[in-house]
């Protein structure tokens, strides 16, 4: 963990921060280095402050830390925003024509390198390339061969023509040469080793989108909302190549109802949204569940309530997903714990939805959705994807599920709670379904016995899933430790890295990371075996801690963060130590 480098570019929205950061992250990934990125951004198109941060190492990295080694500061505010993270070996690259280093009031020991980014960019063919000049300067400071930038520049600008690519390559070289010549005395401050490994670099939203296509999802309807829009943007242009389609609906009400319609027609179907959209979808969610329609609803959480802090991190929707909506109806809730798990859990969500004919919430959060992370490509092995469509029946199987009047029973009461499913076009399977309480045929009823039978049948599916599926947790740290740290969703990587920061005198810790919120693993034994238990989550009230207490009938400690900023490994290590002390 000590040979990691923490890099950032910051400026105003509209400065091309994200695309520049992505180019550098890709260059590192292509050079065989692991990368973990994070973004500070605001809900605005121009102005303000925005930054793209990259943590890189030859080893796996899965968290941000509270330290910045190289900073490209396009504005004064960029330095102000990051003062706490700068240290005596930090290098700040800036353009003296735009900002004076003295304006920054940076700590004295920080090295400022004035590089005429705009002028050099103009020499290469246009001022627009000033960020690329800065990347070249970074290569010189970090002893990172400039050729490593070339491939990602080709990937980014290839569509705009060969000369644009060449100009950008030249801009990078001018930046590197300038630093090498003007600041020869400084020498390279860091050294970025390269390896022969090939990594892929993707974020949680992209992993969800790729998982959906892999799982056979063919229909997506959604309404743009931060931070879930990337799922829709990923699928648009790709899902069509696999016979699918994306509809941009007029609102979230339409989105979930279109997805429901497609699912009733037999397609693997999904929508993705964030908290405000989940609120709007909750009425239809009840219909999806009571009509026993397989559907995947991805909720990429952001800070709430109401409009909240739309571009900030929070895990505040757990209660909503578990209990939201009037009446009582089972639903599954999956919370992938890493970017790669976003892929795997998406595939699983589609299978669970069809096997149990139930809506599945697949929840990520802003931090994981916009975080790009490197993996070996075989982490996403398409040959291992398995499709299970559950009790989908064809024409030959229909008669077994008809009553004496040849009417199909879509809500037949069965031992495992799962009924046969016939989609429109299947001869003999004609039936209706409804949000009204219904009988086996799907027709309205207020018969007391049938009501109880259908409610029990729907909950039987949960018991069946508990028996048949492996709803287990992931474990890290010291399995024999007296202290137990429990996490759900995206905090896993940060907690695992925090373990590295715990010293010999700090408490030993066992980490349990829970990707299944409902149905979920029973943690009674784990909690009772531990002397101290703490649940780490990004919300104010400890929604998962409440669940653990409810399940185990024992009080647990809590670490809650709800300022909108991601947990950082080093900070979290201190907090865990304090809480367990």
């Amino acid at each position, binding site marked *: 963990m000590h040979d990691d480098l923490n890099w950032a570019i910051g400026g105003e929205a509209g400065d091309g921060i994200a695309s520049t950061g992505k180019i550098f992250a890709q260059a590192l990934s292509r050079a065989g280095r692991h990368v973990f990125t994070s973004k500070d951004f605001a809900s605005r198109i121009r102005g303000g402050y925005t930054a793209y941060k990259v943590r890189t190492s030859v080893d796996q990295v899965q968290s941000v830390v509270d330290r910045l080694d190289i900073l490209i500061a396009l504005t004064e505010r960029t330095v102000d925003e990051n003062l706490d993270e700068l240290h005596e070996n930090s290098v700040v690259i800036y353009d003296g024509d735009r900002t004076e280093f003295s304006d920054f009031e940076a700590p004295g020991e920080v090295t400022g390198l004035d590089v005429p980014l705009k002028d050099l960019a103009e020499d290469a063919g246009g001022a627009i390339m000033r960020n690329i000049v800065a990347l070249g300067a970074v290569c010189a400071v970090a002893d990172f061969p400039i050729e490593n930038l070339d491939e990602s520049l080709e990937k980014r600008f290839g569509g705009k023509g060969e000369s644009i690519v060449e100009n950008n390559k030249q801009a990078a070289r001018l930046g590197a040469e300038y630093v090498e010549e003007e600041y020869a005395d400084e020498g390279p401050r860091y050294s970025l080793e390269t390896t022969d490994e090939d*990594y*892929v*670099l*993707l974020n949680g939203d*992209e992993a969800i989108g790729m998982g959906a*296509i*892999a799982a*056979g999802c*063919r*229909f997506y*309807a959604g309404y743009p909302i931060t931070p879930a829009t990337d799922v829709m943007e990923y699928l648009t242009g*790709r899902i*069509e190549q*696999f*016979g*699918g*389609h994306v*509809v941009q609906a007029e*609102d979230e*009400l*339409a*989105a979930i*109802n*279109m*997805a*429901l*319609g*497609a*699912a*009733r*027609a*037999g*397609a*693997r*179907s999904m929508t993705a949204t964030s908290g405000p959209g989940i609120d709007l979808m909750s*009425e*239809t969610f009840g*219909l999806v569940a009571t009509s026993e329609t397989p559907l995947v609803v991805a909720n990429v959480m952001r800070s709430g309530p109401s409009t909240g802090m739309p571009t900030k991190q929070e895990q505040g929707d757990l209660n909503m997903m578990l209990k939201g909506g009037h009446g009582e109806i089972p639903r599954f809730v999956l919370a992938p714990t890493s970017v790669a798990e976003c892929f795997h859990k998406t595939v699983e969500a589609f299978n669970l939805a069809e096997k149990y004919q139930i809506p599945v919430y697949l929840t990520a959060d802003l931090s994981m959705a916009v975080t790009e992370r490197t993996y070996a*490509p075989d982490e*996403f092995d*398409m*040959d291992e*994807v398995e*499709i299970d469509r559950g009790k989908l029946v064809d024409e030959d199987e229909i008669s077994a599920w008809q009553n004496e*009047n040849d009417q199909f029973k879509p809500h037949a009461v069965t031992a495992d709670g799962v009924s046969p499913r016939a*989609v*429109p*076009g*299947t*001869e*003999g*399977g*004609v*039936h*209706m*379904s*409804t*949000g*009204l309480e219904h009988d086996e045929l799907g027709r*309205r009823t207020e018969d007391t016995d049938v009501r109880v039978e259908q409610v029990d049948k729907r909950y039987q599916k949960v018991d069946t899933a508990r028996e048949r599926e492996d709803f287990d947790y992931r474990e890290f740290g010291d399995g024999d430790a007296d202290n137990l740290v429990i996490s759900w969703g995206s905090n896993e990587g940060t907690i695992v890295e925090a373990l590295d920061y715990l010293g010999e005198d700090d408490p030993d810790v066992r980490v349990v990371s829970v990707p299944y919120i409902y149905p979920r693993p029973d943690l009674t034994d784990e909690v009772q075996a531990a002397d101290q238990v703490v649940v780490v989550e990004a919300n104010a009230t400890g929604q998962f801690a409440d669940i653990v207490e409810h399940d185990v009938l024992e009080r647990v400690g809590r670490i809650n963060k709800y300022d909108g900023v991601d947990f950082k490994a080093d900070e979290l290590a201190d907090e865990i130590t304090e809480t367990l002390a």
Partner: protein
Amino acid sequence: MSSENVRFTDFKSDKQPTWCPGCGDFGTMNGMMKALAETGNSPDDTFVVAGIGCSGKIGTYMRSYALHGVHGRALPVGTGAKLANPNLEVMVAGGDGDGYSIGAGHFIHAVRRNVDITYVVMDNRIYGLTKGQASPTSRPDFETSTSPDGPKQPPVNPLALAMAAGGSFIAQSFSSDALRHQEIVEEAIEHDGFSLVNTFSPCVTFNDVDTYDYFRDSLVDLSEDDDYDRHDYDQAKDAILDADKEYMGVLYQDEDSTPYHEAHGVTENMAEIPDGAPDGATDLVREFY
């Protein structure tokens, strides 16, 4: 089931409607069933979507694949079903409250999206199932339990909304004129794009103004007007915005409009997928290098 042998009674379920005796919805539904059979559809390949209200019960009384959904969202459900399996005949039914009040937003966008579905709105100008409140198509002076002096707002003109949204098939029918209603729904089914049929479907219990007699006496059947050309946008506009008369028939049709499936190349039945990840999925991973 071979479609040649389909009779309209095949679209009838064994459930007896609980609509009030004399309700316009009987006629509206009969015409829909006859039109479906007459256009060669079978219950196995038909998907009927309904929302909430008296109209919402139609899926129970008809025999086909059907979903009775939440209030106002029937059109998005029908849209999703049709796009997922273009081989299905998708018919969406609703009332004036379901379609023009709580579902008005979806109505506009369904029209402009131009997905090849048929939307039959049973317009009785009243909320019947909740026992008589003003609907978006109620007259400004129509006295109800929630509007003792009338709603004092102009009623929604659904045909005008559809026209403004670029509608390609805009029609109006009357449940009691069984033959014309059936003909119009048949034309709507055969139209390649989104079809609106606003069907006057009188409520005999709560609306004593917009009655069978009123519609019988006042509706002008455009099929009897040799000078009326449904393809003439300006003529259609004048008829739709006519404050003095109400019309029956296909008021406007644009047979050259591009339906959604053509514009977006959505033609496959999405229900059929392979047992594993689709061919070419590994290319998606390579993109992230």
